[in-house]
């Protein structure tokens, strides 16, 4: 803080007697000269001279018609003489506006954290803070000051703070004062810290005006008796717009829509919508909150968002949003997976039904020769043997295939046992399957999930490490191909095995503390002080007035 350019205090001028709030005299005893005014009036007196008449009644009637205008007026020459005398005496007595005590310098510290971009009643808190602080430096021409955090002459560009969210440290060179130090208090703790340090360093002669979010009083930054003045901002009442505190996606792939869970700062009113805007696609659409909003008013709001909306959207709550400028959601949902599909052996009639089902369901492209294999493709295999665990990134659905490490001899026996608590088997009708012939599974590691067992031997295994769903029976045996649960089981397994994307999150308000303090009730703001104002003599104006009165009176008398 030692390098902050706090302006030097102006020189002190000698003051005099103060008469009233705006007028004082350096030599008040000279005001005694105003006693000359009655003498002036006496010198200008005009005795009523007698005038004989024989028509007194007619004069009386004329005078009655004159009405109020018969009231004696001060002769213009006498009036000008009095004004000239008063102006001269006041100039001699050193009339002037007295000095006003108060801080002679100020430093305005503006919180530019994301929470200050919240809108309380239409304009952002930053705009309101600058507007509220403006009289502090615009109305005191004699008071020198600096502005930290925002350019003094660039107030109109405040709206561009919306773009500043993308900057890592909140530094916007084009928004900073040309003649002031550059110090943006970004971190929450730095704001009161900066203001406190600045106030201590500058001394009682400098007022430090801190405009920040509502969390600052908790820091104990401002006391009533020091030179630090806080103006807090927050949501003052329940009518304030809500704000998105958190948002995350649930991706029920391969469903066409994503499920977005939104946590707001306060319960949303009925009919509230979330408007998503995709800057990339130039698309904007509003969504009504549905599931979850009625059952748990205070809980997260849920809505369905088309998968094709992504990958990056701006979110806005309607009606009213406290963070219009800040919500930026990354819609990193899993893309619609349309893999290449290879069925081995190519012409196996038992694989044909399942192959055609997956081609239609996933939009997969079937390969019928040895070319066109891609990483991340899908492979259906019946029978045969995998010599080694492949590392080609393909997802494999293997039926009756011998896996590496599995014994070729021996047949498992015993009753079928289903892991009915497994999500992949939820609500599936498994009672129609009977197994008479199967191959053995290799030894399993911890990553493998056994869905069905045949006696002690695994029969259906989900192996995410190897991106594999394995079944101990070929499709053509044990009437497996005709089982009703088969396509649902395959699709559910693919949701676990397909390439996985990161869940969507709020990007700008990743700091939950910043989000929560933005929604707090503002503290009591301490009024800004009356700044120091130097004494200003009025003698030039008074001398000019004196000369003007003398000239006018001379012209009047001459005429």
């Amino acid at each position, binding site marked *: 803080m030692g390098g902050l350019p706090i302006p030097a205090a102006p020189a002190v001028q000698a003051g005099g007697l103060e008469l009233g709030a705006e007028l004082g005299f350096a030599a008040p005893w000279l005001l005694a000269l105003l006693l000359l005014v009655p003498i002036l009036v006496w010198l200008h007196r*005009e*005795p*009523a*001279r*007698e*005038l*004989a*008449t*024989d*028509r*007194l*009644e*007619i*004069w*009386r*009637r*004329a*005078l009655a*018609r*004159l009405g109020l*205008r*018969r009231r*004696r007026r001060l002769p213009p020459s006498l009036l000008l003489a009095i004004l000239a005398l008063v102006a001269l005496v006041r100039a001699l007595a050193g009339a002037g506006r007295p000095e006003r005590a108060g801080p002679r310098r100020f430093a305005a510290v503006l919180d530019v954290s994301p929470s200050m971009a919240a809108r309380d009643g239409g304009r952002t808190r930053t705009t309101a803070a600058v507007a509220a602080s403006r009289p502090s430096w615009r109305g005191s021409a004699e008071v020198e000051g600096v502005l930290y955090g925002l350019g003094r002459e660039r107030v109109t560009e405040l709206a561009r703070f919306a773009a500043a969210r993308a900057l890592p440290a909140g530094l916007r060179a084009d928004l900073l004062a040309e003649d002031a130090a550059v110090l943006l208090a970004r971190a929450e703790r730095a704001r009161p810290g900066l203001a406190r340090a600045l106030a201590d360093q500058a001394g009682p002669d400098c007022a430090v005006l801190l405009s920040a979010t509502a969390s600052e009083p908790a820091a104990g930054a401002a006391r009533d008796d020091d030179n630090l003045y806080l103006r807090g901002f927050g949501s003052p009442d329940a009518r304030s717009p809500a704000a998105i505190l958190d948002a995350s996606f649930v991706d029920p792939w391969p469903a066409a829509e994503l499920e977005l869970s939104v946590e707001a700062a306060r319960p949303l009113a009925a009919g509230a919508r979330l408007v998503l805007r995709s800057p990339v696609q130039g698309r904007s659409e509003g969504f009504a909150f549905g599931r979850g909003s009625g059952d748990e008013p205070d809980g997260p709001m849920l809505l369905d968002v088309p998968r094709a909306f992504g990958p990056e959207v701006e979110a806005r709550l309607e009606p009213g949003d406290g963070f219009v400028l800040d919500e930026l959601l990354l819609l990193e949902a899993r893309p619609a997976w349309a893999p290449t599909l290879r069925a081995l052996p190519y012409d196996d009639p038992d694989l044909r039904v399942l192959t055609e089902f997956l081609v239609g369901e996933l939009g997969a492209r079937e390969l019928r020769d040895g070319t066109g294999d891609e990483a991340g493709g899908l492979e259906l295999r019946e029978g045969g043997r995998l010599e080694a665990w492949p590392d080609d990134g393909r997802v494999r659905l293997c039926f009756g295939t011998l896996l590496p490490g599995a014994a070729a001899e021996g047949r498992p026996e015993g009753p079928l046992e289903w892991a009915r608590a497994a999500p992949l088997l939820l609500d599936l009708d498994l009672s129609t399957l009977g197994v008479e012939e199967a191959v053995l599974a290799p030894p399993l590691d911890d990553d493998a999930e056994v869905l069905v067992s045949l006696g002690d031997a695994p029969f259906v295994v989900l192996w995410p490490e190897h991106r594999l769903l394995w079944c101990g029976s070929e499709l053509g045996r044990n009437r497996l191909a005709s089982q009703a649960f088969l396509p649902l089981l395959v699709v559910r397994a693919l949701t676990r095995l397909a390439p996985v994307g990161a869940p969507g999150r709020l990007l700008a308000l990743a700091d939950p503390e910043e989000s929560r303090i933005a929604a707090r009730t503002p503290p009591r703001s301490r009024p800004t002080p009356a700044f120091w104002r130097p004494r200003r003599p009025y003698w030039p104006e008074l001398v000019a007035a004196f000369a003007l009165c003398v000239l006018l009176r001379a012209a009047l008398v001459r005429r």
Partner: protein
Amino acid sequence: MATAEALAFDAMLPVFLDLPALPPSVDLDERGRLHLRAEWGDFKGHVPYVPGDDLRFLDWSVLARSGQRVSRRFELIQHRRLRLLVDASPSMRLREAGLRDLLCLYGFLALHRLDSVELRWGDEPEPRRFEDSGDWDRLRDLLRTLPLEGGCPEPVPDADRSTGSLLVSDFQPEDEWRARLARHREEGQGLLCLFPRLGFEGHTDRPLPTGRRDLRDLETGKRLQVELGSRLHALFVEEQRDFEHDMEACCRDLGHGFLAIDLPDDEHRLDFEAWLPFLTRRRLRR
């Protein structure tokens, strides 16, 4: 003691003899609501019409019948005697110089053009009579020296229809004068009320002192402090005109005539044309 200005004025008076001018009282027949035929008297015959004669006396029937212009002649009721009633109250001192000049003018013309002058000065009980031009000096001395400290004459017309009465006054206080004139309504014939007006009383462009003034009524001694200025002067002139209109209507109702004429200021006092408004342009037959 006549002043130099008075002597100069009196020396100017013979100029008026060259003009067909008479005191306006000779026109009394033509003023007010009098019965002209009765005033004119009985028909006595015709005389040749002379240009300038009153067209009302032109006999239209003779003109239509014969084409001759003749004037009807009556047993004349011509005011061949001027009966001068002068308000001698102190308030008249305000217009004393012009008033005395005016009275001298009327007296001079009456003695030289009419038969006689009867002067009733203030509330004097008996009138003063002057029979011919030989009495001019005596009349002039009186008109120049009689004091303005008396009262007001009663405007009693003379029973003689050949007498034209001319009352010169400021008619203030107004109510007293109205009552005074009304008292003689039945007797009223041939009375002309003349108010010799000062210039500033009838015109806003005539000079008037400005500033604080203590107005003092010369007759009652009452006072009134005013701030004289153009606005008050304009209102005073309006009130004065209203007063004159009221007096004219009042006199008309009573069978009198009323005139308000500006007295010449000092600059035009010796200009005979400035006095012509006080005279009537008329030539009397003898």
